[in-house]
């Protein structure tokens, strides 16, 4: 049961990595200079992370979800500014996708998820700043990747009556 949960969480993270790999491939063409170099580095990081997730699924005897040939993107990258906006959006989607894995039964997977969420959030803020969004103060939400309904504690047995 727990293995199924870990697998499904890995697959969700992989879907986001597939989309990020596709998206960076598209948006990179609209960037120049240092911004394009940054995009290329991050593109490589997402491809490496995609391959790592596929390996982890294979180790569990599971076939990894395949990339889609095309993706509907949240922002149409027609300029350097919109390319940066797209990159920020892709990274936010990565944060959300890894939030499920952060609750996986395997502690090692949780640690990976937490690390990837942090990196993606930092990249998202960086791209937001590079898009000329004005003063950037960080994430728009206090709990990136989580819906508010999930923030409450789960009841558990125990405790005292007072």
């Amino acid at each position, binding site marked *: 049961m727990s293995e199924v949960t870990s697998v499904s969480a890995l697959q969700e993270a992989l879907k986001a990595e597939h989309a990020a790999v596709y998206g960076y491939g598209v948006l990179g063409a609209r960037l120049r200079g240092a911004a394009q170099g940054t995009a290329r580095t991050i593109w490589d990081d997402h491809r490496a992370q995609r391959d790592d997730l596929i390996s982890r699924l294979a180790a569990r005897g599971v076939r990894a979800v395949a990339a889609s040939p095309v993706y509907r993107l*949240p922002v*149409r990258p027609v300029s350097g500014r919109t390319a940066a906006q797209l990159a920020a959006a892709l990274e936010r*989607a990565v944060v959300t996708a890894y939030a499920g894995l952060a*609750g996986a039964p395997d502690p090692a997977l949780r640690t990976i*998820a937490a690390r990837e969420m942090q990196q993606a959030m930092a990249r998202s803020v960086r791209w937001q700043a590079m898009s000329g969004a004005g003063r950037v103060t960080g994430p728009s939400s206090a709990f990136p990747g989580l819906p508010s309904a999930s923030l409450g504690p789960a009841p558990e047995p*125990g405790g005292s009556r007072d």
Partner: protein
Amino acid sequence: MPEAGAGKGLSTRPAGWPAASAAGPPAAPPGGSKPASPTAIQAVWPAPLSRRSLLGGSAVLALPALPLLGGCKAVEPAKADTSALPVLVAAITAEQDLVARYEAARSAHADLAWLLDPVLAHHRSHLDVLRRHYVPGSGRRAGEGGRIPASAQVTAPEGGPGAVLADLRRAETGAAARLTAAVAKADAGLAQVLASIGACEAGHAEALGRAT
């Protein structure tokens, strides 16, 4: 919002991105299954977290059947699982420290309010949610070895706004790094909250670094 592209279904890759144009569409991942139909368009935005993915959240909790009340007197209360309590206490303590740091910085540098106020609001939200986990309505936790220390008195570092922002950035980075390790020791629901808080703090650190 920027020019909305949702629904436009970009299916071609612009020219001028050498590696991309050389590679064509993103290659199917090694070991992956057969790609979907070439006509398929997969919407990736928004990508909400499915309810099933929220392993420990109250939204998906399956409550066990309640025991008959008639036997309560003879039954010892179940002992709570306190193994993750030190992780929770450490997270609360860290958030208390961050709130105190931002309040001190805010008092000393009103001109930084545009940056510090939104971040401080995030940390207060973190603290509120973590405290809800600490006292989930089932009793006090201090007696279980989880006493939370009082907030430390913090003064903003000297050296001007740059020094203050650098200090806050170090604090954010350190807190986020500790949460990366903490998620391995927490239960599933708390781990997701801690991972999200860590992501938020990493985003703060990036913003502070850009403002420095």
